[in-house]
């Protein structure tokens, strides 16, 4: 009886364990599915504007000169192929699908090559997560990184390394010597640092396996010695072949070493604490990636431990916790950054209402968001009514380096405000630093087209005609070169042309787009267009420059001859009249009746009345009590202070 009971208990235990195992297998599958589908979904629909921006900040051409240029540096082929893949982010869903498919391939290869048992399969998510984090952490680095096609560089390099490792494992020790040498000699020009990393993994594999080899121990030793020597010698040898890399960089080609170092950010001061300000943080996913692979190799040594009861559950759970934590830390989740990218995408699609509306999704915007919003309101013809109805300020940029508007949106801003030479200049300057990118080429085309420099515009059009996704756009622009009279009729070019009514002068912006434009709009040319005058007027209001305001306002009334005065202009007139104690401005008879609404007069009175209640209080302390006026110029004038432009 007892025996039967014991047997049935054992049977039920086995059944329970089988059930648990099956359930765990299912759970693991669900986790995997959730991970890959989830990341795909987030990239496709939440980060779509960022992905679009990443593709626009890259370039891939079907051209021999471009190909040769790419191959002139070690790791050139890797960057070339990576750039090819990055262009698919132009359509974020398509780009994300390809990206996730390749990430999944990394996962599968990791399982296969490192012989990870099925119940430990979630371990393979660790390098995959690190790979993903190497990209999701970037933030504003997308504007500054100098490695073409960075988004795919590490991923493709890891794929190449995994396949090489797989081949390496299949070979006998003598062939391995030949293989590792071939890998380094052929791989270094194509993959740069990653060829060395691959060789290091091969070396490590050899070392951890050496005990299990009964024969040819000396051959293993030889393999180790040759690999170590080759890792040092091959880059040095190639230093004498390539003329594009310094000796001290020769072992690191393909990594953003020069930029992710203290030297690059040494003069940057941050106002607040954020771990994104620490430049070395960006190396952590790389470290995790390589250590995870070394650990998976080293795990061979401790295979026996894998049989410990329930270890798979602990490992699976730990892996999931790691993935969630790691991604939540290394996913650059700055709302302002995302808004800027969404605005950028909407601007290229000429959806100006969306550009303005996105600015409401933050309480403290960056200057880029504010400038984009102002531009949109001007385009929509509602700047006089809506300019101060949005959040304003100058949020600090979360990045270790100084981020200038010239890189994040200055080219677009200059173009739209008719400063074609400056838009073009920054395309060229940035092309020198970061290489030509779709975004720069498009701005160069439009700027030179509207400058009347058709031959130069055509040069960039011809380059864009060699791309996969901008061919049609380029052909559309080519039509303007062939029929320049159509430029003035094009709706999208109306504002830039209206704004280009100034005379040439020698000037310099020192990388400060907003300050330069604000200073420029302090001067109104004789034959200024109505739109230019309106920009000058609003610019004076933003500067809180009463003298410039009255000058621009006078011009506005005479040139634009408005039937009705927009709300904010009424507010400014009333406010400046109140502030003008010495009565330097004379208002003509009937002006107030014709242009100033009584409701706005009442609002100013109540605002002034309320300020008396808080007399003696500092302006920043008073601001919260005046939120009801936050859509007025009065509020902006008194409470929006200390704006720092970048």
């Amino acid at each position, binding site marked *: 009886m007892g025996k039967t009971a014991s047997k049935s208990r054992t049977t039920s235990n086995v059944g329970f364990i089988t059930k648990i195992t099956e359930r765990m297998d299912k759970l693991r599958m669900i986790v995997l599915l959730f991970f890959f589908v989830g990341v795909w979904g987030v990239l496709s629909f939440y980060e779509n504007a960022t992905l679009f921006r990443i593709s626009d900040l890259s370039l891939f051409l079907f051209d021999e000169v471009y190909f040769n240029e790419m191959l002139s540096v070690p790791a050139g082929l890797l960057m070339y192929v990576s750039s090819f893949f990055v262009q698919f982010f132009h359509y974020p869903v398509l780009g994300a699908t390809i990206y996730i498919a390749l990430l999944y391939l990394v996962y599968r290869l990791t399982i296969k090559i490192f012989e990870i048992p099925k119940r430990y399969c979630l371990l393979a998510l660790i390098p995959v997560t690190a790979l993903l984090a190497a990209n999701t952490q970037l933030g504003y680095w997308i504007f500054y990184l100098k490695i073409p096609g960075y988004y795919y560089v590490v991923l493709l390099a890891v794929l190449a390394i995994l396949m090489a490792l797989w081949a390496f494992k299949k070979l006998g020790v003598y062939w391995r010597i030949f293989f590792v040498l071939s890998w380094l000699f052929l791989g270094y020009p194509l993959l740069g640092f990653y060829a060395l990393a691959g060789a290091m993994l091969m070396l490590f594999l050899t070392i951890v396996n050496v005990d299990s080899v009964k024969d040819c121990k000396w051959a293993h030793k030889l393999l180790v010695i040759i690999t170590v020597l080759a890792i040092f010698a091959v880059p040095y040898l190639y230093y004498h072949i390539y*003329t594009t890399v*310094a000796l001290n960089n020769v072992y690191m080609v393909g990594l953003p070493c020069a930029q992710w170092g203290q*030297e690059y950010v040494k003069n940057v001061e941050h106002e607040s604490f954020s771990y994104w300000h620490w430049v070395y943080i960006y190396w952590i996913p790389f470290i995790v990636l390589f250590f995870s692979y070394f650990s998976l190799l080293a795990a061979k040594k401790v295979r026996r431990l894998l049989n410990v009861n329930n270890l798979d559950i602990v490992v699976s759970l730990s892996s999931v916790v790691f993935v969630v934590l790691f991604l939540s830390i290394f996913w650059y989740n700055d709302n302002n950054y995302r808004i800027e990218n969404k605005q950028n995408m909407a601007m290229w699609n000429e959806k100006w209402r969306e550009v303005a509306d996105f600015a409401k999704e933050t309480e403290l915007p960056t200057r880029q968001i504010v400038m984009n919003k102002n531009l949109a309101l001007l385009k929509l013809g509602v700047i006089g009514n809506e300019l101060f109805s949005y959040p304003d300020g100058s949020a600090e940029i979360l990045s270790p380096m100084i981020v200038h508007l010239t890189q994040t949106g200055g080219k677009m801003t200059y173009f739209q405000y008719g400063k074609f030479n400056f838009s073009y200049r920054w395309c060229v300057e940035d092309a020198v630093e970061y290489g030509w990118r779709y975004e720069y080429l498009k701005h160069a085309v439009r700027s030179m087209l509207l400058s*009347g*420099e058709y031959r130069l515009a055509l040069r960039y059009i*011809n380059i864009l005609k060699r791309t996969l996704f901008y061919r049609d756009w380029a052909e559309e622009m080519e039509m303007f070169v062939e029929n320049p009279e159509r430029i003035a009729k094009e709706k999208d070019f109306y504002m830039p042309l209206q704004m280009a009514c*100034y005379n*040439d002068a*020698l000037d*310099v912006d020192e990388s400060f787009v907003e300050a330069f434009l604000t200073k420029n709009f302090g001067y109104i040319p004789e034959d200024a267009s109505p739109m230019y005058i309106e920009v000058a007027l609003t610019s004076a209001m933003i500067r809180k420059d009463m003298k410039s305001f009255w000058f621009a306002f006078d011009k506005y009334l005479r040139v634009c001859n408005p039937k009705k005065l927009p709300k904010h202009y009424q507010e400014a007139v009333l406010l400046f009249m109140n502030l003008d104690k010495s009565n330097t401005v004379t208002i003509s008879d009937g002006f107030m009746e014709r242009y100033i609404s009584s409701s706005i007069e009442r609002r100013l009175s109540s605002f002034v009345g309320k300020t008396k209640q808080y007399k003696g209080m500092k302006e920043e302390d008073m601001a919260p009590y005046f939120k009801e006026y936050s859509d007025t110029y009065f509020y902006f004038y008194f409470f929006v202070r200390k704006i720092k432009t970048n």
Partner: protein
Amino acid sequence: MRLIIKKTLCLVWCIGLLICYSCSPEIPERFVVVEKEPLIYPDYIGVTVPCNIAPLSFRINETGTAFVTRFSSPDIDIDISGKDAVVPLKEWSMLMNNAKGGEITVETYVKSDAGWLKYTPFKISVSADSIDPYISYRLIPPSYVAYENLSICQRALSSYDEDVIYHNMLGGSEPNGQCINCHAYKNYRTDNMQFHVRQYNGGTVFVHDGEIKKINLKTDSTISAGVYPAFNPKYDVVAYSVNNTGQIFHTKHANKVEVQDKASDVIIYNPVDETVMHVANSDVDLEVFPAWAPDGKTLYYCSAHFEKLDTSLTAEAEMIIRYREVKYDILRRSWNPETGELGAVDTVFMASKIGQSATFPRISPDGRFLLFAMAEYGCFHIWHRDADLYVMDLETGDYHALDKANSESPESYHSWSSNGRWILFASRRDDTNYSRLYIAHIGADGVAEKAFVLPQKTPEFYDFFDRSYNVPEFMVEPVSVTPQEFAKVVSGEAKTVKYKSFDK
């Protein structure tokens, strides 16, 4: 078995022949004559080329489905099919040798919907005057302030081979970048040459009789390190300008940028005793662009008189406002190689008198002609749309524009070949922004023929190549020092020269 192999080989041979036959272009028997020359890029129609130049590859910019081009010299015909007419190097050499002193005729056939069209044939004159085998130039993105990925390269003119002399990425990288510029040679040879490295590990890399060193030409008595160099062709000295240069941008004008010297002087460097001395250093004159006469006893340079008028402005601000008033003349001073003494200033060409600004004087190897660039104002004519090349006959003082070689876009950075029959210069005529190298034949009378762009293997190379060519120089031999050897010198310390007072 042997029979099978033999048969297979025979079959392969026959297929090969068939492929070759089907690929070799055939001049159409029937065609309609089009009374105009074909549109080709680069434009090689009617140019004069040296007999030792690389093949002039071009693209036929006519609409068609098939293209055949025939290059004919008196005894040789070469037929090429395809939109890109690219003649193989070996066949081109034979063709050029056969046409030396004569002409090549180029016939173009284009297959349109209506059948084959034959365009009016055009000629390429093949001069018996050879050209120096090498040139060197700097490749630089046409940027303003930013610099990265700069290289000084040398190119064999009879082929497409290009080598790097020095690349700035060899000696510096982010954030310690290097700007490299102003390569120069003594007498077209490379055992005495120099180039500058700016910013990180800056200095002048100087090859003196084959020995490489790095020097610092900045002294307490000079406003900067050496800038525009000129090796004395006979004596062991080098003239330099020293400049305080700035850039400022046009908000609207197509010239886009003004490069201005706020101050500049001319010095002479003696590499033997490592000293520099002033040649010209007036406070109210901007002296720049030194150039030696072939006898090494006369130094030419440019000078602009610019006096500050507005006391309320800084000198810099005033120059920005009055930038159009800065006009350079060409002056010269005799130089005694024994004593180092300089003669009185002699005005060679007073461009300012005709409301112009003349820069970059270059004397022909026979000493007869002065080649210079001229535009309305300023010194950096490569950014001035109206800049053209001119030649002055130093015997008569007459000067003329090189009309056939010039274009509506800027021309500048010119140099003479060692036999004085060719000039090499940078021009932005292709797209107004990227400077390309053009070569023009120049006759004994100083009149230049139509210029042609430096040939490249791929006709559309210039459409996609994103760097400008500047400071082109002829060389009779290549630089033999490797880029890595230069990099080693660049990474070392620079020896600072001493200033020698003129009076001493």
